[in-house]
């Protein structure tokens, strides 16, 4: 039989009880604080955060300027040969000088969803189903024929003698001469000519001319940029689907693109709003702007490049033209 009558025994008991109480308090506190800090996983959450991370070493551009656009809705941007900036929106086109000062306004009947400017400073506006041409003073020169009820014109590109019109409704690129005569259809599925055919799930379908004069078109449903001759022959393509930075995300991207003077591509995406530069081979070179620089849900980041290779991003959610310049190393 044990008996705790001595002073020593009582001390031992008190020590054991004290240690036990301290242990309970310590480990209990640890357990409570650990649970309170733990983020419970939400099985219903649609989480894209991991895909928004950017390697800082790719951030070669910084934002150097902004032009506020005083329109309710803005759709397209183009830069003329004298670096004047053209922005289309509510029934008009605003023309800014290279410093962002408003110079003039071209009024149109209806809204141009896209536009481009040729070497003569003629402005080509893509209305829903037809093209309108205005001279540098804003006087209407021509009203081209309708491309049909299904037509949704989303982009225009001009070369020296031809005008290429992307039609997201009919899933083709129309080639016109500069007088507005319709010549050929480019990009229709043709297995014999290895033409895959355009898949355009949403009304974003961009075209541009590269420094060699070839036509490029964004086949957004295939996540690729495709290269065609002016006769409509398929030359090559690049791009693949993926959420990673070097690929094109979502169902249909890139939503817009433009081409730098040395042949590199500037692309913008929707879903995860980001603007990137890829070289002629389609390899990622730089990130111009990442998702953190846009309001969540931003779509329709139209692009243009001026003669000094500054990249102009039209941000329709903030109604801004945002100007990005390559950082000096």
């Amino acid at each position, binding site marked *: 039989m044990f008996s705790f009558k001595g002073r020593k025994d009582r001390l031992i008991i008190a020590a054991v009880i004290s240690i036990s109480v301290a242990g309970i308090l310590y480990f209990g506190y640890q357990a409570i604080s650990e649970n309170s800090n733990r983020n419970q996983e939400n099985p219903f959450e649609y989480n894209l955060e991991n895909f928004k991370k950017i390697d800082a070493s790719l951030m070669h551009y910084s934002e150097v300027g902004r032009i506020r656009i005083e329109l309710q809705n803005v759709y397209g941007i183009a830069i003329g040969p004298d670096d004047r900036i053209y922005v289309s929106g509510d029934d008009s086109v605003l023309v800014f000088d290279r410093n962002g000062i408003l110079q003039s306004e071209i009024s149109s009947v209806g809204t141009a969803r896209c536009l481009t400017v040729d070497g003569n400073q003629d402005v080509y506006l893509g209305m829903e189903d037809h093209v309108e041409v205005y001279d540098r003073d804003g006087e209407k020169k021509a009203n081209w024929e309708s491309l049909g009820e299904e037509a949704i014109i989303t982009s225009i590109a001009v070369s020296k003698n031809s005008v290429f019109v992307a039609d997201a409704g009919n899933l083709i690129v129309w080639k016109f001469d500069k007088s507005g005569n319709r010549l050929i259809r480019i990009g229709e599925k043709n297995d014999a000519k290895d033409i895959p055919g355009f898949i355009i*799930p*949403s009304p974003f379908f961009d075209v541009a001319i590269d420094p060699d004069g070839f036509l490029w078109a964004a086949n957004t449903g295939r996540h690729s940029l495709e290269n065609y001759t002016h006769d409509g022959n398929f030359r090559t393509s690049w791009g693949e*689907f993926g959420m990673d930075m070097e690929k094109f*995300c979502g169902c249909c991207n890139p939503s817009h693109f433009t081409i730098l003077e040395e042949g590199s591509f500037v692309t913008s995406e929707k*879903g995860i709003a980001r603007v990137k530069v890829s070289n002629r081979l389609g390899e990622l070179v730089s990130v111009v702007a990442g998702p953190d620089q846009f309001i969540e*849900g931003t779509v329709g980041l139209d692009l243009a490049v001026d003669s000094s290779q500054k990249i102009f991003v039209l941000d329709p959610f903030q109604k801004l033209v945002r100007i990005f310049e390559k950082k000096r190393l």
Partner: protein
Amino acid sequence: MSGKTLKIPIKRRDFIRRSVHTVVGLTIGGIGGILFSKSSSEEMVWQLDPNICIQCEKCSVNCVLPHSAVKCVHSYSMCGYCDLCSGYLQPGARVRDTGAESQLCPSGAIKRTFVEDPYFEYTIDEKLCIGCGKCAKGCNSFGNGSLYLQNRHDRCLNCNQCSIARRCPSQAWKRVPASQPYILKGDESNKFLKS
């Protein structure tokens, strides 16, 4: 004949009888009036405006029903029939197939059917749909928003104080006429859809 009219005093019993008749008459008339006014004004029901909805997943857990009355709806006229459907596939899915690990829907309620290369049709199995809106979030993020949520009136109890509406962070819930109980997108918005 003296020509004088006699003023007969009203009896207490008659006074009470007439008073009771008046009160009963007014009560019946009032109730009838209320019923008439209720029947002539249109009945209102709860609905979720898909143009305001932020797909926060709270509709799936805040309904008083054991299985939420909110279900995913698909606008076929808007859908791109994409092989790479961001409403069907996980954002980082390695392959575009029907494997459970590739699917975004936590209950596997979306069926993917091949149409022709490279198009696929997506249909909602409402018995499996829990109304979490994860697919709608994916479709809205990358696609054109053809997948969206609606309160299904074949299930909804139309509570006076809808418990989902009370907790909706974007205040997307509103009362709509029972004759037009859905707020639809695309071409379907022009058609009358009644459960």
